[in-house]
């Protein structure tokens, strides 16, 4: 038996708004696929042949000798995934959908795929494959329990590495520290897609993932800010940093995800340790947490002050805060764009990205905006943080889109286009 895994393409910011290429100094960076396919490939029995196609690199709708085509995708790629499923079903192939979007929208996906895997797929994958073999594939699969992630094998990142060619040579690949989250942030799908149970991979597993990448000369990007949560979580992260320092391999992490509250709650000692472990850059995600939701509204001086403190703390630790600003939250108004630009200039942020608030299916904000009848665009390809797909509260959708473009343009105005450091990763998505 043979499986073809497909990672469908999606529209990136600079594709949605080509003018960004004029305004933003950039070496357009195309990163690795997310870990879903690598994780499922790792629990696929050895006697099954695997093929992987990254639809972003070359169109995946080509003939195949695979028996089944398995897709992993998030919302921005859903339209393309559905299109590809139609193509492969036309060839007589069975199609399976998994990942965040199918988990959140299984009824919709059932109309387009032969089977939908809901939630984390590892515990049920063997059953799915057995049903493919016996030609008794069911429309929907959901594991009866969440997986014990301490027992999972290393993700098959080698499938991704094998696709590197030409200009596509990412210098880093994602590494998972944990799954799930106990919080209920309005814009985040994680507690729904991976449950509220925060589970850690073992330190050995994480170090193993880092070493796997190291062997190929690659660094790791750790995107989860949950790892900074005070208490048990931060302790786990501290152990990881200590292991990296002890191994004398300080260049293994390209960046690590964090949010402002977690910079505020991290001790200077912890930030120093992160720096010693080779963390030179934070991917500082804004717009989800109470600090960045309040700081740029003009009505919340306490959180504005905290935002300055967070950036200063990061800079003092020698870690560049590559900051992601989100426009279109419920309290954002026409003045928010100027407040964000003023903050970015005064706080000393040298690199930033800008995004439009997007109510992804499965998030609390999606449920709320659906109930209020404020979803105005259901083209999933537009759910990429570069289009306003809902009716904002204090602005029009056009004002939000114009504001987002002005943020990119004005923030990078005057920045040196020839400086490779400035241009690196300005537009990652």
């Amino acid at each position, binding site marked *: 038996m043979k499986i073809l895994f497909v990672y469908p393409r999606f529209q990136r910011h600079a594709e949605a708004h080509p003018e960004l290429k004029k305004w933003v100094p950039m070496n357009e960076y195309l990163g690795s696929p997310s870990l879903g396919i690598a994780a499922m490939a790792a629990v696929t029995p050895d006697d099954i042949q695997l093929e992987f196609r990254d639809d972003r690199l070359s169109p995946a709708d080509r003939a195949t000798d695979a028996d089944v085509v398995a897709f992993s995708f998030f919302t921005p790629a859903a339209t393309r995934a559905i299109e590809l499923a139609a193509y492969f079903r036309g060839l007589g192939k069975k199609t399976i959908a998994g990942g965040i979007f199918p988990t959140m929208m299984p009824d919709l996906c059932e109309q387009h795929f032969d089977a939908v895997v809901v939630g984390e797929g590892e515990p049920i994958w063997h059953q799915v494959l057995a049903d493919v073999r016996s030609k008794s594939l069911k429309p929907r699969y959901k594991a009866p329990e969440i997986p014990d992630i301490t027992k999972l094998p290393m993700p098959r990142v080698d499938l991704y590495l094998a696709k590197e060619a030409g200009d596509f040579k990412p210098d880093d690949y994602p590494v998972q520290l944990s799954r799930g989250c106990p919080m209920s942030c309005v814009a985040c799908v994680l507690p729904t897609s991976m449950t509220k149970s925060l589970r850690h991979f073992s330190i050995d597993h994480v170090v193993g993932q880092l070493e796997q990448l190291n062997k190929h000369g690659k660094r790791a990007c750790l995107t989860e800010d949950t790892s900074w949560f*005070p*208490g048990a979580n931060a302790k786990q992260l501290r152990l990881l940093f200590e292991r990296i320092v002890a191994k004398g391999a300080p260049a293994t992490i390209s960046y690590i995800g964090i949010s402002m509250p977690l910079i505020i709650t991290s001790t200077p000692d912890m930030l120093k340790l992160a720096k010693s472990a080779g963390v030179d850059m934070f991917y500082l995600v804004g717009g989800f947490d109470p600090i960045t939701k309040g700081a740029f509204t003009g009505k919340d001086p306490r959180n504005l002050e905290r935002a300055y403190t967070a950036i200063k703390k990061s800079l003092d630790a020698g870690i560049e805060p590559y900051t992601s600003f989100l426009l279109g939250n419920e309290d954002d108004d026409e003045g928010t764009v100027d407040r964000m630009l003023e903050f970015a200039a005064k706080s000393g942020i040298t690199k930033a990205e800008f995004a439009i608030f997007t109510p992804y299916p499965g998030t609390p904000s999606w449920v709320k905006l659906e109930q209020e009848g404020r979803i105005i665009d259901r083209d999933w390809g537009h759910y990429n943080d570069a289009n306003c797909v809902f009716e904002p509260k204090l602005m029009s959708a056009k004002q939000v889109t114009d504001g987002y473009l002005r943020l990119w343009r004005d923030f990078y105005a005057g920045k040196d286009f020839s400086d490779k450091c400035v241009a690196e990763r300005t537009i990652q998505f």
Partner: protein
Amino acid sequence: MTDDILTQRIFKMMAQLSVVRVPDIKMEHRLREDLGLDSVCSMELLSMLAEELDLDVPMEEAAQVTTVAGTVEMARRHLALKQAAAAS
């Protein structure tokens, strides 16, 4: 650590994050409504508990606590667990 000492240490942590001073903090106070501790402050408090008392309270559990008394009780429970683990 006696209950009184634990309570006083937690009051001091809360006073650092709140406009309410230590002598005015009461066990029945609600963290948000009476002490003005928003969710970021609660996270800072959890960080202080971890740093100063070496307590590994899970976020899930901390998120359920809404009063000063609840915070003290949570810390007491985790200290007891830590002592039991050390003794075994």
